[in-house]
């Protein structure tokens, strides 16, 4: 049993997931490398609780798969294929692209806790029900409002 109160994670570093924080090119060949920040758990035996601690790993990214902010999967590479001693991993694939959040269950895009297609639907409905009646210049305001209500009723009936 280790003497410290904080136990390091038992999970190895063969395969890790993290966010890219920095991208540079190394060596004369300018091989792109990504700095990936991965969270690993540390167990505190007194508090009986896991604490998340981040570690930075440098990963080879020969085909420039990832951009800054992307969540990527990295895999350890053997010593012969390491261009530098501290480049210990290689980027396997991009799991989540930055600025493009997708619900993993349904596979639909999400913007700010609403699905993208719901926003699109809302856009279409608002244009149909609210905007178009207001644009009709031959009508008075009250009539336009009445038209809006009629359109709304129609949409309701059509979708029931």
């Amino acid at each position: 049993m280790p003497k410290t109160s904080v136990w390091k994670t038992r999970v190895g570093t063969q395969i890790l997931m993290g966010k890219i924080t920095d991208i540079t090119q190394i060596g004369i060949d300018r091989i792109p490398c990504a700095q990936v920040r991965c969270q690993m758990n540390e167990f505190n035996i007194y508090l009986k609780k896991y604490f998340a601690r981040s570690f930075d790993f440098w990963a080879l990214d020969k085909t420039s798969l990832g951009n800054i902010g992307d969540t990527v999967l990295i895999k350890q590479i053997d010593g012969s294929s390491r261009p530098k001693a501290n480049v210990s991993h290689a980027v396997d694939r991009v799991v989540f692209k930055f600025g493009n959040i997708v619900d993993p269950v349904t596979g639909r895009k999400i913007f700010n806790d609403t699905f993208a297609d719901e926003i699109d639907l809302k856009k279409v409905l608002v244009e149909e029900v609210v905007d178009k009646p207001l644009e009709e210049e031959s009508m008075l305001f009250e009539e336009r409002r009445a038209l809006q209500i009629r359109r709304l009723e129609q949409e309701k009936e059509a979708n029931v």
Partner: protein
Amino acid sequence: MINLRRFVHTSCRLERGRTAFYNVHQKVTDPAKQDPDYFEKKARELPLDQNYIDALTKLYYEKIGSERDLGLKAADNLILEKTEFGLPRIEKSKTRAKYEDLDVLSNAPESVKKIFSVEMATRKELSQEWKQSLIKSVRQHSLDENSLEMKIAWLTALIRHWSLLVNDIGQETKKKPTWLTHRIWLVINERRKALRILRERNETAFEKTIAALKISYHVPKQPAHVKTRKAWAEAQLKLRVENEKEKRLEELHEKYDKEVEEHKRETQEKRKALNNELDKLAQEMRQIDVIEGKSFETVGKYEPALISSLTETVIHSNLFYHPPPTMTEK
């Protein structure tokens, strides 16, 4: 003898010049400074002479001094744009948003329309018009009141309107309206946060929004060093030395390449000349041999007796030639 210096206290006089003074509220007039890497680029261009460190120090104080003003103005390009302040131009004859849907106004005479137009609007109503105009350019739909794009447009209009106000106040009094500039600062930070979240969640909408509102957004970098004059100067020097080293190595490499080419050409020429000399000497030696009778000079070319040898071959083939046997019968 009593030392008189013990009674003369100079420390309080020395205190005054201990720290270098620099103005942290410098007014920025050069729009090129809106570039976040402006001072780093300038540092790269400084000549590497004995004044280098002093020049870096001067540049650092300029950078720190203009940080506040740039923070207030750089994102909206307000240093360059001094007349419109990035606010949309609104037609004077347009009816104010509040009265737009009134049916009575559509048939009203011009004088009445003018009363309800933007021309006669109060400052508050005018700022509402600006806000509506900017919001309309980015919002998702006409009922959209809580999306991030809409919020960013609203905050942008507020910032620009208040900056215009600060400018107007500055015309009348010399005193800076800090009660307003402080609020602008808070609103700018609020917008920065909204922009950051929008970029994280929806990058296409973010690009569209900053293009429509003409906001220059720079991804905040983690500082690579502590923010002090010394550390900044050291970091710049380190980068400069690295660049200078690379440049000189490159120059040396080019020089080396050129020298190798030159050397190759020279040796080729030398070799040619030596070979010529060798040929000449060999010829002379041969002539000496000829004179001594050890060798002789061939004159002309040996031609074999072609006709007679041909005739001989023909006679021989007539006498002795047998055609090769064939498998078919004649």
